[in-house]
């Protein structure tokens, strides 16, 4: 059921077809039965009338002229003869429907009752009885029989094929119209689904238009309301966390100033390093909380210069970083978020892989940055999970390596925000490679 009828559209069509088909068959049957009995009645009364008029016309003449008039009264459907023996035989009245017909004819025309009336089906050529004709013999007043052979009026059997065809056509029509109507009917639902998907991927709520049937309007209303509530909840939390992070900045500044006052003291540098780490964590958390919220416009940025600055800062901090890049490569993007994303990836390489070798290549449709390190790499089954927020491989590792596990998350968010992708892979010769691919509009 689930695989074959998993859309409202199909289900509605199925229900319609089943219901309509059932209704149609029932009404068709009733109609057929009524129509047939009506027709039979009509035919029988006409037959009775005709029998009476033939009898009167024939018996009114002298016996010698009777055969001639009988002959002239015959036509394709009725054959009349005057003879001394009866064509119909009462011994062949085995068919109960023939007996019933005789009774009905007698009740319709009581005049026939006076004469001896025999109704029977004629023998067929191959044996048995011929179902298509009826023989009626009426005993004349002066020792003779009026034999009338009538084509038996069939019920509307032949029209059954037409009925099946028209029913099928009607069924197809119903399916077609039902598909169109249900499409129209379920369109608001599909719109709602699309909106739900978009609201999931973006930070801003996507208002769904309130149209369609009432149930769907109510659903859309509830959905919009839910979105607003989620946004409010997220905003409240974000603001609270941002406020906390923000308030921490003043004491952090004081600590920095106090550390500076210690002068050339052995622990001054350690305190500075701790403060750097705290600040980095705070920044990462704030950045993560901001998510995809974009408050910086897209500009053209020279990527090699950006990577050079990151490389130089890391070299000054005593790390082993190299860069191979074209002299100049403009790229349209957001400056500071991109710098943050690249810094996070490169910092990861020097932190866990002891050195970072960057290569920037411009292709026709994309810019590709690879960052290789000489670290142990990452187990294949964990390579995707490192992008999850707050994920740190090797939980036993103490925090001396720094970070809160948001670096890769932020990098991926930023790069995806530029329509690109970042992935990690273990290099054949050992070490990890981060690959950033940023699409370049032509």
């Amino acid at each position, binding site marked *: 059921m689930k695989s074959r009828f998993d859309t409202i559209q199909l289900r509605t069509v199925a229900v319609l077809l089943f219901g309509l088909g059932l209704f149609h068959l029932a009404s068709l049957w009733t109609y057929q039965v009524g129509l047939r009995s009506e027709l039979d009645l009509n035919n029988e009364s006409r037959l009775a009338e005709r029998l009476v008029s033939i009898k009167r016309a024939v018996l009114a003449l002298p016996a010698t002229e009777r055969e001639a008039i009988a002959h002239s009264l015959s036509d394709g459907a009725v054959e009349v003869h005057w003879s001394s023996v009866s064509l119909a035989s009462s011994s062949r009245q085995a068919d109960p429907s023939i007996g019933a017909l005789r009774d009905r004819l007698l009740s319709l025309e009581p005049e026939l009752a006076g004469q001896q009336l025999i109704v029977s089906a004629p023998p067929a050529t191959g044996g048995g009885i011929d179902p298509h004709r009826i023989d009626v013999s009426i005993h004349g007043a002066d020792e003779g029989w009026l034999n009338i052979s009538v084509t038996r009026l069939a019920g509307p059997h032949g029209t059954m094929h037409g009925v099946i065809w028209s029913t099928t056509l009607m069924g197809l029509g119903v399916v077609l119209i039902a598909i169109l109507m249900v499409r129209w009917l379920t369109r608001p639902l599909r719109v709602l689904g699309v909106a739900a998907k978009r609201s999931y991927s973006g930070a801003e709520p996507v208002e769904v238009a309130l149209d369609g049937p009432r149930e769907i309007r109510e659903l859309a209303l509830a959905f919009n309301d839910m979105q607003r509530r989620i946004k409010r909840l997220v905003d409240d939390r974000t603001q609270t966390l941002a406020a906390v992070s923000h308030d921490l900045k003043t004491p952090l500044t004081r600590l920095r*100033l106090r550390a500076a006052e210690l002068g050339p003291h052995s622990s001054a540098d350690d305190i500075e390093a701790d403060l750097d780490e705290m600040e980095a964590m705070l920044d990462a958390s704030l950045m993560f909380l901001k998510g995809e919220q974009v408050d910086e416009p897209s500009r053209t940025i*020279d990527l090699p210069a950006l990577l050079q600055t990151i490389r130089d800062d890391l070299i000054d901090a005593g790390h082993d970083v190299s860069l191979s890049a074209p002299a100049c490569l403009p790229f349209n993007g957001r400056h500071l978020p991109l710098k943050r994303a690249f810094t996070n990836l490169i910092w990861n390489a020097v932190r866990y892989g002891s050195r970072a070798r960057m290569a920037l290549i411009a292709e026709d449709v994309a810019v590709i940055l690879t960052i290789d390190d000489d670290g142990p790499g990452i187990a294949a089954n964990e390579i995707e999970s490192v992008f999850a927020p707050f994920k740190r491989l090797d939980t036993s590792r103490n925090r001396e390596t720094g970070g809160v596990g948001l670096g890769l998350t932020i990098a991926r968010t930023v790069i995806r925000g530029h329509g690109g992708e970042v992935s990690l892979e273990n290099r054949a010769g050992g070490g990890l490679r981060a690959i950033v691919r940023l699409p370049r509009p032509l």
Partner: protein
Amino acid sequence: MDSTGQTPSRESHVLVVDDDPQLRLLVSRLLRASGYRVTGAANGDEMHAAMASNAFDLVVLDVMLPGASGFDLCRELRRGSAVPVIMLTARGSEADRVEGLDLGADDYLAKPFSPRELVARINAVMRRVRADGAPNALTPARAFRFSGWTLDVARRELTDPQGSIVDLSTGEFDMLRAFVEAAGKVLGRDLLLDLAKNRVATGYDRVIDVQISRLRKKIERDEASEPMIRTIRGTGYMFMPTVERIS
């Protein structure tokens, strides 16, 4: 060559406006240690009172103040005075920075700043003021243009002739700013060293060479064309292109 302004003169008087008394005290001590005279103020009223009775060479202004915000105070200040202003804020967003600089602040520092950075920025502003001979005009230069390049001082941003942003480190930016402000004049190694020494702890001499070479790599991409920064043997460096000041 202007080499008299390499160290802050004893007379330079800085007003620190911050509502956090501890922070005010710490900043004051730091600046005194760097050779400045310092007065503190907790809010706008105290700032106005202090300015009524004293002449200041520079104001360090926190953005988040009770009552009138640092932005409001900066706007008020700019109406009647050209005193250099350095804004401090806990929000490091680009929008805040541009707003502060649009109001006429000379520089902008996000908390938590490093003490070295604060001193370096104050020194840089003081050096510029002294180089001009008098405090900046009411509207200080917002950008400099040279050979198709633009150095936006307000945004601390360098754009190349094609309009691409060329990322600079803080040290590179300060160095390039010093160069464009003194275009056509020889910048002594001592002055450049003074710019850098508050940021990098060791290897002063080499730091200048390294930083010059890094800066050159970014602005002199085409090896065939005329170099922008020329080495003047024995004395220092000179910035060659013609520089246009944009206010």
